[in-house]
């Protein structure tokens, strides 16, 4: 795939004295061992939140959307905020697995599996909000362009909301296939190590009969590249179309052309923050510090810093152009955002998304696990408020001042949101104990170029790959 020579200034991506077998053992350990007390505590909390969410959703479905805080002026609030927040979080997974693959970033190999799992789990959470906002979720299939024999109902192809249905379902399918393709050799590894017939049977089904022959690997490489090529435009299209939900409307604060790329940047930003949140805990709990190193966290922090700054530039651009446009409504929308009754949400958004990531310019800070964890949470809060600011502040003071109002969430709004967080962690915690959380086959492929063990060997021998290949070259 990529070059086999690595410059001496590059730091190792696998640290400690690890050989190929160690990788297998380390990755299989959380799956083969028993769960500890902390896992059960975390799981119980997540499950309780999830159950509370189910209760709130049941109440919504049984009573109606009136149980939410949305009102006549603010017809969209927490539901769509949560939807966009979760879809955005999902982006980092595909970005890491597909875009970083195209850019040949070797460091992605330690984190892509969990990032993709996060993608799939968060897209599931996102999908629930529009579905339950329908009021009659059992008719959710009506968003598909079903044949006319069902009745005279036909979807509106002019609506970005419909494009969302296509974009997100395509994205979820491709991500799932991409994730599973990568999992095949790793499931096979677990299958081959399994002691009980039951686990052997399960992992044998999950690994689709992976044999490990050269032909398998060749097809694996080919399909990975094709899927990466497909997933890259898809990941960009998803949040672009999510932004169209707003930007196509003639609503000041929503209709602005920068929204598509800025939503994508924001999505990557929040997604990387969530990956950091999850992996900082996971590397500790599952003893994976040798693979998910401080350097990995540092690189993710840099991505957070860059995307946060891009988002910041977009905020300022919107503000400036609102003034520059000379359009009164446009100017008021932004003035109201910054100084109106929701100024605190705007201030929170600016502080969390634009200012807080700037601390990552300092190497000491971006290599500190503790600060990284704190910032990752701060960014996730900030990105939730960004969507809240865009959605609620643009709606609550519309063109008709007599209908101006505020939005008051109900306990059902909050419960549903907490429920999705619970569901997400339930899925992630189950995943962390039954799936190989590191793409061990891929990590093994960079062992010789990028592990501390081999780097040391090369130095000791004074015979590095490059002088060797240079001889071949001439």
């Amino acid at each position, binding site marked *: 795939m990529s070059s086999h020579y690595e410059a001496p200034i590059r730091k190792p991506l696998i640290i400690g004295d690890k050989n190929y077998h160690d990788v297998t053992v380390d990755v299989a350990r959380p799956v083969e061992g028993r769960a500890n007390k902390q896992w059960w505590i975390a799981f119980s909390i997540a499950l309780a939140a999830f159950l509370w969410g189910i209760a709130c959703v049941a109440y919504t479905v049984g009573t109606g959307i009136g149980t939410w805080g949305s009102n006549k002026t603010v017809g969209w609030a927490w539901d769509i905020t949560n939807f966009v927040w979760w879809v955005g979080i999902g982006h980092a997974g595909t970005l890491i697995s597909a875009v970083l693959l195209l850019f040949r970033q070797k460091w992605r190999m330690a984190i892509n599996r969990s990032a993709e799992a996060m993608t799939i789990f968060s897209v599931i959470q996102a999908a629930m909000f529009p579905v339950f906002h329908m009021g009659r979720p059992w008719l959710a299939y009506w968003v598909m362009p079903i044949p006319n024999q069902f009745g005279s109902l036909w979807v509106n192809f002019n609506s970005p909301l419909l494009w969302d249905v296509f974009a997100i379902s395509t994205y979820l399918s491709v991500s799932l296939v991409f994730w599973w393709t990568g999992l095949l050799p790793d499931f096979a590894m677990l299958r081959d190590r399994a002691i009980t017939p039951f686990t052997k049977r399960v992992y044998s089904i999950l690994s689709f009969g992976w044999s490990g022959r050269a032909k398998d690997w060749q097809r694996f490489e080919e399909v990975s590249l094709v899927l990466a090529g497909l997933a890259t435009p898809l990941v960009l299209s998803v949040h672009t179309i999510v932004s169209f939900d707003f930007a196509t409307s003639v609503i000041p604060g929503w209709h*602005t052309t920068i929204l*598509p790329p800025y939503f994508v940047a924001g999505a990557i930003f929040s997604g990387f923050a969530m990956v950091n949140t999850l992996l900082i805990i996971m590397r500790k709990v599952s003893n994976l510090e040798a693979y998910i190193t401080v350097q990995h966290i540092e690189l993710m922090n840099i991505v957070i810093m860059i995307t946060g700054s891009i988002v910041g530039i977009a905020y300022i651009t919107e503000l400036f152009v609102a003034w520059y446009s000379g359009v009164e409504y446009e100017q008021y929308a932004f003035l109201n955002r910054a100084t109106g009754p929701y100024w605190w949400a705007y201030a929170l958004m600016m502080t969390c998304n634009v200012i807080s990531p700037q601390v990552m310019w300092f190497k000491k800070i971006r290599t500190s696990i503790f600060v990284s964890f704190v910032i990752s949470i701060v960014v996730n809060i900030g990105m939730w408020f960004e969507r809240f600011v865009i959605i609620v502040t643009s709606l609550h003071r519309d063109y008709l001042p007599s209908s101006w109002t505020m939005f008051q969430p109900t306990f059902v709004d909050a419960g549903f949101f907490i429920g999705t967080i619970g569901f997400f962690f339930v899925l992630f915690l189950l995943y962390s104990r039954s799936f190989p959380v590191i793409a061990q086959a891929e990590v093994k492929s960079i062992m010789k170029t990028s592990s501390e063990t081999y780097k040391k060997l090369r130095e000791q021998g004074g015979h590095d790959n490059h002088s060797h290949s240079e001889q071949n070259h001439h």
Partner: protein
Amino acid sequence: MYTFSSRLKTIAFVLMILGILGVGYSFFTAPKTVEDVERILAADSHHGGGHADAAHHGDAAHDAHASATEETHSHDAVKAHDTTAVTAHDSVHGAAAVAAHDDHNHDAHAKDAHAAHEGHDDAHAAHQEHLEHVLHQQQNKPWAAVYVAALFFMLISLGALAFYAIQYAAQAGWSPVLFRVMEGVSSYLIPGAIIVFLLLVAGVMGWHHLFVWMDPEVVAKDHLIQAKTGYLNGPFFLIRAAIFMGGWIFYRQYSRKNSLAQDDATDNRFYKKNFKASAAFLVFFIITESIMSWDWIMSVDPHWYSTLFGWYVFASFFVSGITVIAMITLYLKSLGLLEYVNTSHIHDLAKFMFGISVFWTYLWFSQFMLIWYADIPEEIVYFITRIEKYNLPFFGMVVMNFVLPILILLNTDFKRLSWIVVMAGIIILCGHYVDFFNMIMPATVGDQWFIGAGEIGAIMFFLGLFIFVVFTTLAKAPLLAKRNPLIEESKHFHY
């Protein structure tokens, strides 16, 4: 070491001389008086088709005008609008007069129409107004041709400089063998920026009228521009330009100096300096690039605005810069130089040409689709002008910048073939020139556009100058950044 061959040098000089002749000719033949314009228009209408066209323009003007009235909320303007419509029926010239007026000038429109109103049945006043307007557009034309080409070549070198900074900041291992080529391309930034700066100064001095907001008479009648004068005013405009260009040139010179110093260094000190400088430059660049595009490009249509515009312009010149890097690399390779550059490097450059072309299309589509979909007058007028008066360049550019690159460069093997990369590169460069043409011309020359001696001459002149400056720089230093800590990775890069 590369030596600047006398053949190539001759080509560069011939291009510059021919360019000067072409530009000179277009300035010389531009109409000087209203009578000249009348003669030209009369000659044109004999060719036929003019009438149908004019009627069509009348409709467009009607729309544009409606939008203008909505903005001004002025009863007078509404009245003026009706009058204009009447005039349009009365006289083909009257209709053309409205059409010829650009959207940015709708208050002037109102004035025109008032003039017509006062004269009532006398279409003569409107006719005179129209002739004067066409005269301004035709006098703008050679300036606009020079400005588009000057800006385009300067931005190519800025795009290459941004690409270079990204390679450093990302610690890319594949590209250091191409650093000297990138430094060569970015060397044009200095003369290029100076020329563009002088053109901006000329605008502020009133020597040309590409930026209507620089004209105090226009501003006096236009309350929308008046509201922007805190930002759109001559001194601040030039100060911004000087700071932006100064910053870019400073980074260019500083990083080049470090890059050369690193060749003979014993440690990685200069490399580290460049790493830090590149990160700082990219921050400066992302901010200044957006503002630059509003100032130098978007403000020629001073009523129109789009938040995405800066990034859209960036995508356009970024892909052009990468394309030029690829083409010069292939040229040097064909001379037997750049021994460590292999097909994998070319493949990667071609991937960037492909990828950034798609990225450009993404931004083009986002901007176009959102404005088309929302269809609000103050925004849509931009695309109405382009689709109605610039139909071929507007859609032709999408074919050249998206359809053809994607078809040609999708195939893996094609990305490794020199002649295919060069062919795709020529299409991309022509396409993005047309992109800049479409950004500047509608507001400055309106429907008086065509690609003639001035446009081609300006391209030739700046191409000649670009070749001369870039290859002179390439000949000054070894083509391999031999002591770059990542150079071995780059030499043995194989994909």
